[in-house]
């Protein structure tokens, strides 16, 4: 633990706290142009000068110190608890300058708690575009705190901000005077709480009185005691808060009016308002939404194909080169059949992941995400979700783990629980490789009606299937849960912004890096284990299999004999025996023991599937140096003599992977967010059950 002074970033949602955090600390936390991107506290370090380092604590956005959701709760937990390890020495109140009055409400609550506070005005450019000019000196004088103009995105004003932090950290720096006089309650009431709980600050005493249930550091005795004091003084917290908010606005409104000059009184229609007329239009709203989705899936398939082909053939030639250069033996086999084959199955999908994340990042950075929430709220509510569920659902297209954490912005517990339960049904990027391979095997690469890439269309349908089944599952859960809980939507709509290229590039880079390293680690581990299991069998069964093949096929050429031996050995290996063991359970779905091995390995993480297929088919003989897709295409079903991956098998697999819950990290995230093993267990069971039944129906229907 270091003893650096702690500086907290506090402010309304979507005012640029995390952008400022990134600018100060050099870290790259996720930002976006919609409320609720940050749902937990983040810590980084910045240097004020040669000798002073400070810890910067980034907090979720909130409109007041009266939390309505879990992310807002974090702010109260830290600011109202002097014993918290993140309790700040200085608070930087980040405020959206184009909307100063509303931002000042939280500012005044924070400074009334007795913090050294600095007001950092962000988005001054937006304010100026709205014709607002702010008199910084006057504002600073009236509020009694330093006011600094910053531009968090272009990193302007950081020097002044650091200078102000240093000033506030000095021993003799003065605390701001309270903005609000607490004259709606009696002095004795405040005094009693202060002496009873050894609290120094009047407003903190009032926060404790009003937020008994929300303050998590209070013990149950504390709560009873506080409740008693409240009753004796007949304290009504809703009434107090209402008066407090109105009175604060009165004072702050006057200060804001004094220090803001409007260039013209005529309200002009802003660019955002013009754009909203189209994007929220009864017809054009949905039309543009579907056009955007369509564009995304089309380009994932048609544009990403070129770089994917290069990588695929590159990996194949690398494997070929390794095999011809290195001496034949166990290590070479481990390297080529185990590692390179497994890794090749992953890196091939980098272009698609990059395209997917580019689009998601564009949606998030521009401000369109908030419009989608508005477009979808009514539909979502019908099935027991909430407009805010859209963010977890859409970001789950990338990965369900952060998406499930993102559900913390949803205020109603029921809405949030259902969102968490159905989010993994959205097709995440780990399913993309499986989808791509299977679609490539059975759907012809054709253009229909001139512009539609048939494979891209099939991909979009799979994603839609995931989405629709998420909605249906939510609806069922709503019926089962039967909780009557009021849910709110009330949300601020962000101003549209041109996405910044460096943010998009950074988001894509982080996503690709995470995909390669995280998936890579699992895949390398599983590839090695799988190679061992597939190369060795119990006792001398491997040698016996070889002798058997040689004895039975005396006429085969050297190469054909080698292939036959390899495939017989794979079948008798540990992995092969494992596959055979579960074959009866998966045969109704159309899968053989080789696919069974891949199903088993991908239970920990679905992205392993393609790598496993690649390893199995490399070991099982045939042409070692071919691409994964071609290996699968040429695989023969010994019972029919036809191709292993018939349309029925491929579709059955596709459907299975749309529904199956094959991701340990997601189950762990569900456990973390619901604090119970019951929900992840239900999630795993219901999703796997749907997967099995749906795949079975698909296979039987297509036979």
């Amino acid at each position, binding site marked *: 633990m270091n003893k650096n002074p702690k500086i907290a970033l506090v402010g309304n949602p979507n005012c640029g706290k995390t952008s400022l955090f990134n600018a100060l600390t050099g870290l790259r936390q996720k930002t976006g142009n919609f409320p609720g991107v940050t749902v937990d506290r983040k810590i980084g370090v910045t240097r004020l000068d040669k000798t002073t380092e400070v810890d910067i604590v980034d907090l979720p956005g909130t409109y007041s110190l*009266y939390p309505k959701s879990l992310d807002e709760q974090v702010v109260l937990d830290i600011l109202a608890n002097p014993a918290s390890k993140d309790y700040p020495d200085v608070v930087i109140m980040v405020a959206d300058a184009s*909307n100063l009055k509303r931002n000042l409400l939280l500012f005044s609550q924070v400074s009334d708690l007795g913090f050294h506070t600095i007001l950092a005005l962000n988005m001054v450019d937006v304010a100026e575009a709205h014709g607002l000019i702010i008199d910084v000196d006057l504002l600073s004088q009236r509020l009694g705190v330093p006011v600094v103009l910053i531009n968090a995105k272009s990193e302007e004003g950081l020097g002044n901000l650091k200078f102000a932090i240093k000033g506030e950290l000095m021993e003799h720096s003065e605390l701001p005077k309270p903005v609000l006089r607490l004259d709606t309650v009696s002095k004795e009431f405040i005094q009693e709480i202060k002496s009873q709980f050894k609290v120094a600050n009047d407003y903190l005493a009032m926060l404790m009185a009003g937020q008994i249930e929300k303050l998590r550091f209070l013990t149950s005795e504390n709560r009873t005691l506080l409740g008693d004091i409240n009753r004796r003084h007949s304290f009504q917290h*809703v009434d107090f808060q209402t008066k407090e908010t109105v009175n604060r*606005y009165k004072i702050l409104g006057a200060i804001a009016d004094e220090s803001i000059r409007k260039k013209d009184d005529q309200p002009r229609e802003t660019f955002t308002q013009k754009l909203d007329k189209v994007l929220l239009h009864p017809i054009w709203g*949905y039309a543009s939404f579907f056009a955007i989705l369509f564009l995304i899936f089309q380009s994932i398939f048609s544009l990403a194909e070129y770089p994917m082909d290069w990588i695929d053939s590159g990996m194949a030639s690398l494997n070929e080169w390794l095999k011809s250069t290195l001496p034949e033996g166990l290590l070479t086999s481990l390297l080529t059949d185990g590692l390179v084959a497994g890794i090749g199955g992953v890196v091939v999908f980098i272009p698609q992941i990059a395209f997917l994340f580019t689009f998601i990042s564009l949606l998030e950075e521009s401000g369109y995400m908030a419009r989608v929430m*508005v477009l979808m*709220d*009514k539909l979502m509510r019908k099935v027991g979700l909430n407009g805010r569920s859209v963010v977890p659902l859409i970001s789950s297209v990338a990965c369900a783990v952060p998406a499930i954490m993102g559900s913390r912005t949803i205020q109603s517990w029921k809405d949030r629980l259902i969102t968490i339960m159905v989010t993994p049904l959205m097709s995440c990027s780990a399913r993309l490789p499986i989808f791509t391979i299977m679609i490539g095997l059975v759907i012809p690469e054709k253009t229909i009606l001139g512009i539609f890439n048939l494979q891209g269309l099939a991909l979009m349908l799979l994603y839609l299937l995931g989405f629709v089944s998420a909605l249906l599952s939510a609806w069922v859960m709503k019926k089962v849960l039967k909780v009557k809980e009021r849910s709110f939507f009330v949300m601020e709509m962000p101003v549209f912004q041109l996405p910044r290229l460096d943010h998009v590039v950074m988001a894509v880079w982080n996503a690709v890096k995470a995909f390669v390293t995280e998936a890579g680690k699992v895949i390398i581990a599983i590839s090695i284990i799988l190679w061992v299991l597939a190369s060795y069998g119990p006792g001398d069964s491997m040698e016996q299999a070889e002798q058997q093949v040689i004895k039975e096929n005396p006429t085969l050429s050297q190469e054909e004999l080698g292939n036959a031996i390899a495939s017989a050995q794979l079948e008798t290996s540990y992995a092969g025996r494992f596959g055979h063991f579960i074959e009866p359970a998966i045969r109704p779905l159309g899968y053989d023991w080789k696919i069974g091995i891949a199903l088993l390995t991908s239970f920990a993480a679905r992205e392993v599937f393609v790598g496993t297929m690649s390893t199995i088919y490399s070991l099982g003989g045939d042409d070692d140096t071919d691409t994964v897709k071609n290996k699968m295409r040429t695989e023969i079903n010994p019972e029919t003599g036809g191709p292993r991956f018939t349309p029925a098998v491929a579709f059955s697999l596709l459907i299975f992977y749309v529904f199956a819950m094959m991701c340990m990290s997601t189950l762990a995230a569900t456990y973390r967010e619901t604090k119970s093993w019951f929900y992840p267990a239900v999630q795993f069971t219901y999703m796997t059950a749907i997967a099995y039944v749906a795949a079975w129906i698909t296979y039987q229907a297509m036979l």
Partner: protein
Amino acid sequence: MAARNLSQLKLGEKGVIAGFHDPNLALKLLEMGCLPGTEIRLMAIAPLGDPICLQVGDYTLSLRLDEAAVVELQ
């Protein structure tokens, strides 16, 4: 004319907030700058008729119709 509430505004129409029916929701709306006396304008209606987007002061707020119905207009 009988008192209207916020959910009855027509597209582009302005109103002035008079008060609230629901004290808990009122707190949330007050925090977000919807104070009695504030002028509010209906900017957009989502394609399914709900939620709606309102101009409040210097920003746009999105509310469901049943939430807007809590807000009485002058």
